């Protein structure tokens, strides 16, 4: 009995692909774990075939005996250096990075919108135009937030590589979904507010005073990220 897909992948190969995805960004520790997993599975398959099992059945048995890739990859990440400290630090960097980058993009979107909607004040060099000054400040703040957010996300990636702690794609998707949903909701609330000139007086979220479209886009992104996250948590193909 063989268990190969149309693409000709064996069950062991599919398992290794899954493990590879789950150990992404773990650097040398992940490569080593993957190499050991492959060596183990190949040895187990050879062992099974020596006992007279057909190749497909030997592969199925080897994969089943090794355990679910999600659980094993999680344990391998935890066994990596800095697991106990690294995980909360990693999650904090992820939340802060996505939040700052999201704020930065929304500030820049708001600044761009102001320039487009008020062509009389489209030049940042026109210092006597109050709106332009405000736009300039918003754009500057947005750039600062965006740079800080990207720096935090990059530092998380580098730290994960250095410590062998895997970046969780599921966490990333869930964080992105949460922040996008929040940004979208604030944007909608801000646009639809019946007072304060049709807008909430969220001066500290000036950049979130984005058009209705931005809210729709971020909420759509949130739904897509959440769906992706849920899809990743489904039962892997090799166990079906």
């Amino acid at each position, binding site marked *: 009995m063989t268990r190969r897909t149309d693409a000709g992948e064996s069950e062991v190969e599919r398992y290794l692909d899954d493990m590879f995805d789950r150990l992404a960004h773990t650097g040398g520790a992940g490569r080593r774990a993957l190499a*050991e997993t*492959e060596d*183990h599975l190949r*040895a187990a398959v050879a062992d099974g075939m020596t006992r007279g099992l057909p190749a497909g059945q030997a592969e199925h048995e080897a994969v089943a005996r090794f*355990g679910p890739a999600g659980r094993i990859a999680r344990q391998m990440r935890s*066994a990596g250096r800095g697991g106990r400290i690294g995980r909360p630090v990693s999650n904090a960097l992820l939340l802060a990075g996505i939040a700052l980058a999201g704020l930065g993009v929304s500030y820049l979107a708001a600044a761009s919108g102001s320039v487009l909607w008020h062509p009389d004040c489209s030049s940042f060099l026109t210092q006597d135009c109050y709106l332009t000054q405000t736009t300039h400040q918003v754009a500057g703040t947005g750039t600062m937030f965006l740079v800080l957010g990207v720096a935090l996300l990059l530092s998380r990636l580098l730290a994960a590589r250095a410590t062998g702690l895997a970046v969780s794609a599921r966490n990333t998707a869930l964080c992105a979904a949460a922040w996008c949903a929040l940004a979208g909701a604030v944007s909608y609330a801000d646009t639809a507010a019946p007072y304060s000139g049709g807008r909430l007086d969220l001066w500290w979220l000036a950049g979130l005073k984005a058009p209705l479209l931005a809210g729709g886009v971020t909420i759509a992104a949130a739904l897509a990220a959440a769906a992706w996250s849920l899809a990743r948590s489904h039962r892997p193909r090799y166990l079906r």
Partner: protein
Amino acid sequence: MPTFLGMDLRGHLDLLLLSTLRQVGPAHGYALISGLRERSLGALDLPEGTVYPALHRLEREGLVASEWDTTAARPRRVYQLTTAGVAVLAAKRREWRAFTRAVQAVLA
């Protein structure tokens, strides 16, 4: 989690791995797991993948050392006990014997 008759084996996995390594000598993961299964007469049949994270943790703690064996058809990571690992194994054995004596005394 690795279990035996429904009991969580995580607390004992270190002792089992160190002890098996002591008995079989330098070994790669697959041989180590096979050795563990054979020595327990098939009773300790763990999800095999759970052994590698445990080995990595033991290595981080300095109780085992490992290196790639490139003489085989496929490169294999070979593990062996360190001096610290031998000492910890002896201490864990003493603890286990004291624990089983106490449980035996209660059950008797």
